């Protein structure tokens, strides 16, 4: 069965600093990868997704992620964070032919002034 590991449960950073949130998934023949963000008391919102093609994926709010098949990773990055990026971020994988998203446990990003 697919699994997703988010290596950091909490990441505190200062405003305007760069950030990387790490995600690794268990290997499979073909997978689709996603990052979702959950703001306090709100539903999950899709940040970006990798289905195929270019391994560097750009999403909303200045986030990007790089798919690395050899390392089975899909790390999320932003070069300069804002206070408003404070939220919980979830990495998810969907195996080809399945409709079942498998999520990691999440990373709480806290941006401090």
């Amino acid at each position: 069965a697919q699994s997703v590991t988010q290596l950091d449960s909490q990441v505190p950073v200062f405003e305007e600093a760069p950030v990387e949130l790490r995600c690794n998934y268990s290997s499979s023949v073909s997978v689709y990868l996603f990052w979702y963000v959950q703001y306090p008391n709100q539903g999950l919102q899709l940040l970006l997704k990798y289905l195929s093609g270019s391994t560097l994926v750009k999403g909303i709010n200045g986030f990007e992620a790089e798919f690395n098949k050899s390392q089975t990773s899909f790390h999320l990055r932003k070069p300069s964070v804002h206070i408003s990026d404070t939220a919980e971020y979830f990495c998810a994988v969907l195996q080809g032919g399945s409709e079942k998203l498998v999520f990691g446990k999440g990373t709480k990003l806290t941006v401090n002034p």
Partner: protein
Amino acid sequence: GAGVSQTPSNKVTEKGKYVELRCDPISGHTALYWYRQSLGQGPEFLIYFQGTGAADDSGLPNDRFFAVRPEGSVSTLKIQRTERGDSAVYLCASSLEGQGYYEQYFGPGTRLTVT
């Protein structure tokens, strides 16, 4: 347009009672999903509907959990004989088959507390 809506937003019930949680998907979305998010965890898949039929119910934890989507739109998740371990946020999502169909749009969730 309107997103996925879920009612109630909060539900408190006593152990052993029956509860129903409702999901209204985005209009025109044929696929509907239920997930459960326990405290400190990511969402866990419960069931997926394509139209009126449950295409994958492999995530339902036991036979106390059941979900329906009789007209291919609104869905109801039903939990019998609730237990304290059922306390969680229940998330519903929908997607439009055929157009970016791997994107699932999530509702705000129903927070279920079993006392």
